């Protein structure tokens, strides 16, 4: 009796284990940097090679840091949402222009509108790798002390913004 059941039990066990792993998205990496300070960096702004920004940029106020590039197709999808976000003047939106050219990025933004309060130019992943960026768009939320509190991979949908970002920003403001 037991002998006949054993393969079935094993089969069901394996099935359950595989079913659980199917629900996990392998592209969603664990966010290793949550609650860590924003990495040190020294990079110029998109529009001026002589204006250097550092990690001080994200200190002193809550910021939303958005990784984008003119080559990034999904960034097109996300762009209208960012334009909506930037209408709220209390929100500081920092762009991280990743693996792009100054000209190309500027043209891209001129065509669609520039939602960013300031843009860090990172053509060689000097900041992107320390930030654990694996694709664009990716969005980080940093608190007043410059610590990373949240990471979102992929385009932000309207729903993500309303249900995840806004409550988080409110919570950080209250801290």
């Amino acid at each position, binding site marked *: 009796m037991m002998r006949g059941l054993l393969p079935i039990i094993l089969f069901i066990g394996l099935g359950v284990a595989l079913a659980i792993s199917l629900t996990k998205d*392998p*592209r969603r*990496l*664990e*966010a*290793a*940097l949550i609650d*860590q300070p924003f*990495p040190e960096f020294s990079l110029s702004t998109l529009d001026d090679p002589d204006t250097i920004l550092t990690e001080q940029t994200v200190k002193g106020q809550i910021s939303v840091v958005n990784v984008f590039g003119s080559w990034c197709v999904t960034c097109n999808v996300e762009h209208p949402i960012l334009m909506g976000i930037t209408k709220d003047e209390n929100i500081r939106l920092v762009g991280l222009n990743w*693996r792009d050219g100054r000209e190309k990025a500027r043209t891209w933004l001129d065509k669609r509108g520039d939602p960013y309060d300031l843009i860090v130019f990172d053509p*060689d*992943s*000097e900041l*992107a*790798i*320390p*930030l*654990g*960026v*694996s*694709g664009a768009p990716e969005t980080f939320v940093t608190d007043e002390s410059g610590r990373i509190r949240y990471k979102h991979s992929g385009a932000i949908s309207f729903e993500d913004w309303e249900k995840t970002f806004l409550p988080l920003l409110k919570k950080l403001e209250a801290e």
Partner: protein
Amino acid sequence: MRTFLILLFFWPMPTFAQLAGPTVSADPVLEDRAREIAQSLRCVVCQNQSIDESDAPLAQDMRKLVYSRLQDGDSNEDVINFMRDKYGDYVLLKPPVQSNTYILWVMPFLLLLGGLIWFLRAGRRPS
């Protein structure tokens, strides 16, 4: 004609895979170390390649960073730990032995042992 077509199937096709190693070859010792590290780090965009094998732009930048960190005097372990801090355990191609991977490491041996026990017991039974 048919024989020819069939033969064509067995024709060895040369396939070339270009090695995308670090291009800056200033210091061969450092380069070897960079290579070794690159082989143990997963390319986070292509998932099942190391950054040494991958041609993805991010993998290229990661190789550059590995090399420049070595130049700055980091040990191999420092560099790997840096990447692990940023990308999590996922970036390591060889999963570390730790509490959430015990099953992974122990399972094959358990299965082997189980199979062996089953084999010995089944073999002893009169047919």
